[in-house]
């Protein structure tokens, strides 16, 4: 399997542990990632908050870069990036005049031919049976709270992935790896996303509810597929505990971490040792 890879800024920045673990897993599963040549930032929340045109143009340029190389599919492991890419792709597909003017703005013809996948969808495409067959260390002692956050399933009309209220795709992958999963209430609630720097209070409050609810339902770890969720729930966990006078001790794994562990990799090979919260 050969696909274009749009890492996005986070995976080449402070969330490079996410890139480490997904690369290790995908290599073992014969998936070749071809990083898009000279990709640019998708603009994230700053662009869609301050300039609607930029929030279309920046992802559109990346779509064009991928499709000009003939890629059918591209992996965007950050849900902010993948949502922005899909939103641009949809808007351009629905409006030919818009597609032409955005193509002029980004100096490349954007046809919208490349499909955008999140990491869950890529594991689904690889196949649960194949994953199951590749398991070397079943995750028997794991009792995971699968956390989707906002943008993996929303807006539903843009991302068209799983059920926006009751998603199950991550649970199915975890169960195929031998892990138990818990039913809990905050699977699709927001962790505070891009507010980490500008409004920490928001992150502390929202993420505290998520961590507390996961623990109350018996989870011994939380699994995410988003770099921003990981920053807020892992790096900010000590601050959250201090702020609310409680002690959270919830390891936060990327989906590719748990797949990697089940495939027999050591935590160090996946970058799990670089997380803030260690295994209890």
């Amino acid at each position, binding site marked *: 399997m050969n696909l274009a890879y749009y890492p996005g*800024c*986070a995976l*080449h*920045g*402070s*969330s*490079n*542990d996410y890139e480490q673990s997904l690369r290790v897993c995908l290599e073992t599963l014969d998936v070749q990632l071809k990083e898009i040549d*000279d*990709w*640019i*930032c998708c*603009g*994230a*929340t*700053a*662009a*869609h*908050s*301050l*300039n*609607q*045109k*930029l*929030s*279309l*143009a*920046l992802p559109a*340029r990346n779509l064009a870069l991928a499709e000009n190389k003939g890629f059918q599919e591209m992996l965007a492991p950050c849900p902010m990036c993948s949502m922005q890419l899909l939103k641009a792709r949809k*808007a351009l597909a629905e409006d030919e005049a*818009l597609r032409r*003017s*955005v193509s002029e*703005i*980004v*100096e490349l013809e954007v046809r919208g031919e490349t499909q955008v996948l999140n990491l869950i969808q890529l594991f689904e495409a690889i196949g649960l049976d194949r994953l199951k067959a590749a398991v070397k260390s079943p995750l028997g002692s794991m009792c995971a709270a699968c956390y989707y956050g*906002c*943008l993996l399933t*929303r*807006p*539903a*009309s843009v991302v068209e992935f799983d059920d*926006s209220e009751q998603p199950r795709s991550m649970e199915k992958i975890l169960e195929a790896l031998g892990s138990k999963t818990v039913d809990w209430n905050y699977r*699709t*609630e*927001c962790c*505070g*996303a*891009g*507010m980490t*720097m*500008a*409004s*920490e209070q*928001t992150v502390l409050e*929202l993420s505290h509810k998520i961590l507390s609810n996961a623990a109350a339902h018996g989870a011994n770890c939380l699994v995410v597929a988003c770099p921003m969720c990981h920053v807020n729930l892992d*790096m900010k966990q000590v601050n959250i505990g201090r702020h609310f006078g409680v002690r959270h001790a919830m390891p936060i794994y990327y989906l590719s971490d748990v797949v990697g562990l089940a495939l027999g990799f050591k935590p160090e090979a996946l970058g799990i040792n*670089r*997380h*803030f919260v260690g295994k209890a």
Partner: protein
Amino acid sequence: MKVETVVSDSASIVPLVESLAHTRIRDCYQCGKCTAGCPMAARMDAPPTRLIRLLQLGHAETALRAQAIWQCVSCQTCATRCPKSVDCAGVMDALRQLSAERGVATPAQQRIVLFQKAFLRNIRRNGRLNELELIAEFKLSTFLRGRSFSFLLKDATLAPELMKRKKFHLVGEKAHDRAVVARIFARCMDNSLL
């Protein structure tokens, strides 16, 4: 809430919001489902349902000055659940853009405005986000505005922790063709609608 009419003509703002957000504000029948699911509603001066109502009634200036639009975390729950397919999250984006362009964001929310602006300047320069540069620029711009030493130094202890984990890059990545990025920005910032 005090209603002022100094921003510009309300009647012209609502169509602008609708065209930026590609949605029809008049479609909202005030069921409140957006506010019920909004994780920030409890802290907002004007939660989503009320913001939309302000626009329906022509009080666009009040909406542009609401703290709520900068408290919104863009989680998309409102837009996903709206039974009338009003893109409420898109309306929030449009209001933020207009509020920032007109410089009417409330002082309490300036920090968020400064962050988003620093973010865009950063990617305009580099093509990709440079985290360290962004933090420095954001901290400096908030300090110049509010002279708060505690905010300036807050999280400084995080740097060595991130370094220890090899999550800290002194020199960030840049795109090669930064000239094209600058041209894209220039074309997007000419204030015309697409």
